[in-house]
């Protein structure tokens, strides 16, 4: 009798172990289908980039009695379109006017760059859900505010100053002429 009991116990343990093994080694239960990435545009450009910014910022949004809190990692850059640069050349001098800056702010492609930490609502009954359009509008505002902060913190002024130095060095090194880079708006144009 004892032998039968032991066999039954061992059989149950073996089945449980087998089920656990199969469960852990099984593919993840995913209902998301990934489609192949597509190249939608390849654009040639000529931009001198003088400052890059990486920042983690909070995303806070409220619509009615619904609230959302998330964090996002941003990649920013300040660059200058050299295709539109104004140049005038005399015998041994090149005069260049630094164009308006281009401030790009993107979401980082680093792992975990965007994390929604909490969504909640104030009323007793209701839903804390945000639609895609609502979430996008909150994130757009965060990006627009961040772009303004880039100007406020003086990053644009710094980028323009460094672009003047970099462009002077590049053009004088290539042409062997005296290069004067004028900056009509040292603090940039928001």
């Amino acid at each position: 009798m004892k032998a039968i009991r032991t066999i039954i116990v061992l059989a149950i343990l073996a089945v449980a172990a087998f089920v656990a093994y199969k469960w852990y080694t099984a593919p993840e239960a995913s209902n998301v289908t990934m489609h192949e990435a597509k190249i939608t545009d390849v654009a040639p450009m000529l931009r001198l980039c003088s400052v890059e910014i990486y920042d983690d910022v909070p995303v806070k949004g409220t619509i009615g009695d619904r609230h959302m809190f998330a964090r996002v990692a941003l990649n920013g850059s300040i660059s200058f379109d050299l295709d539109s640069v104004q140049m005038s050349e005399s015998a041994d001098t090149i005069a260049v006017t630094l164009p308006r800056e281009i401030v790009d702010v993107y979401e980082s492609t680093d792992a975990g760059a965007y994390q929604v930490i909490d969504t909640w609502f104030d009323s007793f009954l209701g839903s804390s859900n945000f639609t895609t359009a609502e979430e996008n509008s909150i994130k757009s505002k965060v990006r627009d505010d961040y772009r303004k902060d880039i100007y406020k913190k003086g990053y644009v002024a710094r980028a323009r100053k460094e672009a003047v130095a970099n462009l002077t060095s590049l053009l004088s090194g290539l042409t062997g002429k005296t290069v004067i880079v004028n900056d009509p708006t040292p603090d940039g144009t928001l």
Partner: protein
Amino acid sequence: MEINIMNRLSSLVLTIILITGALLTGCQFIDGTQEIVPQRNYLSEVKSVNKLILAQMTISKMATIDDIDLSKVEGMKQMAAGLMDAVKVGDRKAAYSYDTYLQAYLDLSTLTPDDIKVDEATKTITLNLPAVQTEFAGRDMEIREDHYRVSGLRSHIDPKERAEIKEQMNTALKKEVEEKSEFRSRLETEARAKADTYFKSILGTDGYNVIVNFK
């Protein structure tokens, strides 16, 4: 005697099932405390660079959400999830996409006076530029909702789920770009052509023949 053994046996089976269930579902909460997920520290970095960006590629990635098709399940987890989906009332389908930007650039900080050579005899300027490099500039903050149909008693797709999907899309996209060389090679070709045109226009003004090489 037999009844006693049967009782003890059923108690043993019940215990094993409960322990297995606990192991499978929630061992991290066994002491009653919630698992703390480590968050990345908030950081901020502003750095000076001297890059000449020559081309940018826009890459679009799409993902769709749908119930698991029972005829295509692999393994127990998908089978369990598929069965759960099958008994739920209503549909839950959506498609999301967003753009990621890959850019090609020259690091001008590595350009030295030795990289430009002038041969007055043949009126030729040879410029040795640094190698074209590529990097991800970033991705759109917004996500496009190309399709959304949640009906019956199904739950809406909330911001947390969308963020998780975007994370999966990002991982898959980066893997594709790494594995398929056409993404970077097409961008690099475009960048080299742009650099060639630009530097020839600057250096060739006094009737010099300009040769642009890349390291």
